[in-house]
């Protein structure tokens, strides 16, 4: 069998390298990936580099302008804006970083399964998916959050659940494209079980589409997370979070615009970074992603 191994596609790690270098070859992809990487590093090592503790209050500096002591000034409680901004993404990245893979996995598996099975059950499921998608995301999220509270342990499953639903659609459509091809028919003819077909024939072919979808979902999830924080349904104070910080500092905008500008720049740069990366990833993997409105 030694001769045939050379025909096998490059292993996952080799492919990973090619995709990354492909992304970095595009200017937008390079910018995006750098932004995302920078934010991840900041989330990991932020606590070691911030000049102040995020709860430390200094009444002398309440709503102060940028100064040597507080580079970006301080908020209405005299807390250092720079420190809080640098730490403000950790909670969001943690929650969405766990919820995104969960959403892609469950939505992807359900979608692949129904794409393979099709028939009456599939029809019914798609109608339910449509119905879910026709409700504004914020209503769905709020009902669950009001029911179960707004801690991290609620936000992760809630985000994972709702953002998995549109993934069902994508996975199902991608599966439909694959199912019609010869090799799936061949596997069926060989008498393979459904589980084997999904694992051996469908997953490798649908994986790329799911990867791109996951990257997009991540940015929308971040958007949802920070919007919830902004509205007061997300993380609870005094945890530093960009959405919450913007909501807090909004009332004092005319005295210290830095209080809103700093978290705004950080949040936007992360979301834009993810989007640019997702776009470049789609191109690197050869998937033309239709320009869709958010659902």
């Amino acid at each position: 069998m030694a001769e045939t191994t050379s025909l096998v596609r490059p292993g996952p790690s080799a492919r990973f390298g090619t995709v990354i270098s492909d992304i970095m070859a595009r200017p937008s992809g390079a910018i995006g990936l750098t932004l995302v990487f920078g934010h991840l590093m900041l989330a990991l090592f932020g606590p070691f580099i911030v000049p102040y503790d995020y709860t430390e209050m200094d009444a002398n500096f309440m709503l102060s302008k940028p100064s040597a002591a507080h580079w970006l000034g301080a908020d209405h409680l005299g807390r250092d804006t720079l420190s809080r901004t640098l730490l403000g993404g950790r909670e969001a990245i943690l929650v969405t970083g766990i919820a995104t893979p969960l959403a892609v996995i469950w939505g992807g598996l359900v979608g692949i399964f129904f794409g393979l099975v099709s028939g009456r059950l599939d029809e019914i499921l798609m109608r339910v998916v449509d119905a879910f998608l026709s409700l504004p995301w914020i209503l769905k999220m709020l009902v669950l959050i009001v029911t179960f509270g707004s801690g991290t342990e609620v936000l992760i499953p809630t985000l994972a659940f709702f953002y998995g639903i549109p993934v069902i659609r994508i996975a199902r459509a991608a599966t439909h494209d694959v199912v019609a091809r010869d090799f799936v028919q061949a596997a069926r003819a060989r008498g393979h079980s459904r589980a084997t077909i999904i694992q051996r024939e469908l997953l490798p072919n649908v994986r790329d589409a799911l990867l791109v979808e996951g990257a997009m979902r991540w940015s929308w999830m971040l958007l949802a997370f920070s919007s919830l924080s902004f509205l007061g349904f997300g993380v609870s104070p005094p945890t530093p979070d960009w959405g919450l910080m913007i909501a807090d500092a909004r009332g004092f905008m005319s005295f210290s615009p830095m209080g809103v500008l700093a978290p705004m720049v950080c949040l936007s740069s992360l979301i834009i970074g993810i989007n640019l990366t997702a776009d470049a990833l789609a191109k690197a993997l050869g998937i033309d992603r239709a320009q869709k409105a958010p659902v």
Partner: protein
Amino acid sequence: MLLRRLGLGAITVWLVSVIIFAGVEMLPGDACTAFLEREAKGKLLENCREDLGLNRSALTRYVDWAGSALQGDLGVSANGQKQISELVGYRLRNTLLLAFGAMVVGIPLALFLGVVAALWRDRPVDIFVSTSAIFAMTIPEFVSATLLILVFSVWLGWVPGIVLTSANAPLVEFFPEVLLPIGVLTLVMTAHILRTVRSSVIETLASDYAQMATLKGVPYWQIVFRHILPNALLPTINVVALTIAWLLGGVVVIETVFNYPGLGRMMIDSISDRDLPVTQAIALIIASVYVIVNLAADIMTMLANPRLRTVHLRQG
């Protein structure tokens, strides 16, 4: 074909009503515990549930609720004991004012910018327009809203940054307060539509008939107006519909930022107040609008496209 679409739309609305009802049933407590607050126990609670018919089975209540909703009666709110259709009416009007304002500005702007970006593809104009579109699309609405308030209302002082008009004031009184919320909506909407228009025009430019016309020696602008635009704008209808549908849900955040008395803010209030009937009613309205707008877009696309118009004849 058309009937099938209508049927599917109806089924979706029905499913939505079931999901809404089930979701709201899941909320802890009911209208009575919310209304009576701490006195919600024993006889008082029972009486209240009796009055509102909350002690019947969930199925009976669902049939009752859905039945009257079909006739336009959305029930009474739990707290104020007011007709919901009355409460919602003004809010819906205010939200529609926002949506309409954004559409009137946004759609023509998006079409124009999208076509310009596509015709001058990869030139500075296109790069500028496309990049701005990505920014406008991806930045959360509350961020762009706050930024606009900071610039236009705090720094420049041109327009008020917050809406103080009451919900049922005449429409004229919303000016100029309504301008900034409309601005934010327009920004996001324009970006979405523009991207589709751009890629659709580029696609059409590469099509066989466009190439053919060029080879025949048809003047460039005549090709653009006669061949490219009519074909390229067709897929846009669907995106416009999707965007409008998104708009009705997405205004929630924008309305909250600006304190704008529309449906979205009412929804958030009703959820925190546990005003279940109002929550259900608003969710149902938004979902129905979503389905109807999408349906309308499908029908419009079908009417505008001869190939789709006759598809049922060929499929039998």
